[in-house]
């Protein structure tokens, strides 16, 4: 059974059909990339999967269970967690405090006014653990807004991890990054995939990144899936060449 399955999913905004009859299947443990030109509908696809807005038609299944009409919170609880194309963090709080909010939400104790010592310790330990996974431990005490853009993106990924995802959706994790920052993020994604055994679906414009790490790729163009396959298959696909890779290169 696939971890994530989309069947003929469409989304219409007024007169604009942003996604049309999109079907794809992703297996547990895959590192799966979605590529396509600007406005192809990639972020819209993420919004539908994460429940930010409903699909106009079609069906979305996560781990065999239909989630098409579930609220975003319910999907997060089921393990479907995303990051955003534009960084969404708590800028005036420290890195530690940012992650702590996620951990408390995951533990279901966000409303707790009177935590026991044990709970408080458990929360702190979990935050430290997460910061260690994403190599942010040394930054824990710094205000998030003073970090580099690259580190802010890592904070966002860490916050997503704090929710214990089974499938992590990353919307352009390397957008706006320089070479070193991009390499750092690529290493992080790879280690999350290999060491934390996470299934990851990511949108990416940087073709070196995509062809370097993805197990499989779907190409989106004007709201439709143009092709799906391994990096080799995609690179060799003539339709992709003309529609997308050709003009990008």
């Amino acid at each position, binding site marked *: 059974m696939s971890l994530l399955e989309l069947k003929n999913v469409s989304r219409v905004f007024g007169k604009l059909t942003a996604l049309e009859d999109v079907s794809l299947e992703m297996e547990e443990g895959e590192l799966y990339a979605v590529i396509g030109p600007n406005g192809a509908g990639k972020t819209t696809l993420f919004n539908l999967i994460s429940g930010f807005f409903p699909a106009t038609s079609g069906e979305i299944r996560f781990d065999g269970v239909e989630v098409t009409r579930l609220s*975003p*919170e319910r999907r*997060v*609880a089921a393990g479907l967690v995303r990051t955003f194309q534009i960084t*969404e*963090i*708590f*800028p*005036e*709080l420290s890195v530690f*405090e940012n992650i*702590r*909010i*996620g951990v*408390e*939400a995951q533990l279901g*104790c*966000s*409303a*707790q*006014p*009177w*935590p026991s010592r044990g709970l408080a310790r458990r*929360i702190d330990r979990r935050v430290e653990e997460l910061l260690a996974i994403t190599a942010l431990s040394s930054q824990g005490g710094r205000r998030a807004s003073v970090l580099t853009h690259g580190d802010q993106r890592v904070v966002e990924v860490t*916050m997503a991890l704090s*929710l214990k995802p089974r499938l992590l959706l990353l919307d352009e994790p390397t957008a706006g990054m320089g070479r070193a920052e991009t390499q750092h993020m690529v290493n992080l994604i790879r280690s999350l995939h290999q060491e934390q055994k996470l299934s990851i679906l990511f949108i990416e414009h940087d073709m070196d990144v995509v062809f370097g790490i993805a197990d499989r790729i779907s190409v989106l163009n004007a709201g439709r899936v143009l092709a799906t396959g391994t990096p080799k298959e995609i690179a060799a696909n003539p339709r992709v060449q003309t529609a997308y890779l050709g003009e990008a290169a």
Partner: protein
Amino acid sequence: MTGRLARSLILWVLLLLVPFWLPMVGGYTALASRILVYALCAMGLNLLLGFTGMMSFGQAAYFGLGGYGAGLVLVHLSGSSWLAVLAGTVLGGAAAFLLGPVVMRRRGIYFAMITVAVGQIFFFVAERWDSLTGGEDGLTGFSRQPLHFGGYVLPLSDVPFYYFVLFFFALAAGVMALVLRSPLGHSFVAIRENRRRAAFLGIHVERYVWAAFAFAGLIGGLAGALNALQNNFVSPENLYWVESGNFVIIAVLGGMRSFWGPLIGSIIFIGIQDYVSSLFPNNWESLIGVLFIIVVLFFPNGILGIIRRRAGLA
């Protein structure tokens, strides 16, 4: 950390010794009681304003309700000052709790407007319902009652009353500080910082706004009850939107982003009101106004923010 401990130790020692040193610098103990009462109400408001990031303009409603609750208990029910304080606190908290669902969905200026509107309802009711509230003339006919400890009777003259107020101030400040350090407090701040993000982490923003609103009302009710005992009088003005504005000014003057900001704001506000109004009865409000504008324009973190920066603590 130790610096922080030392500073709060100094603060509490200063507060404990007010009746000894304040008269030496030209103040009087009842003034300090007033400062604490207004500081307490503004600290409650600041849970919404500074920590949850919700611009409430209706805090006076719960302050006034607390006053009427305490006053009515003393007039009709019992001669216990403790019970009067309890009744006022519960009334303020219950009203805010019940009204929470009405205000919690609004945001920004609409939140401010609905909190004013809801507050004004209480003002009109208090003004019209003469038989219960004394109408425009306010509620009189009660005075704070001595405390009984076993066989010992302590009349609440100015100095004992100051300690009575300080006791509740310390209790409420302790509870607020603990809550702000808890996951619930972290969620309030998360909503202030990035509401959308908080929502997507699974935090039901509206419920937390409700909780903060009720909490602020509870503290407002407590402060209002103490205020009624202080004056042996409750005025409908205590419920009026202008009074709400005063609490906002106190919080902003002192510094909304800091826990103790409203205490500093209250010292300045009530201090100026007391001192300047004896010299120029009509001008103290303009002085507050000018000060307020300066702070808003140049010192968004308030007077406490300036002090902290000077001391290199920020």
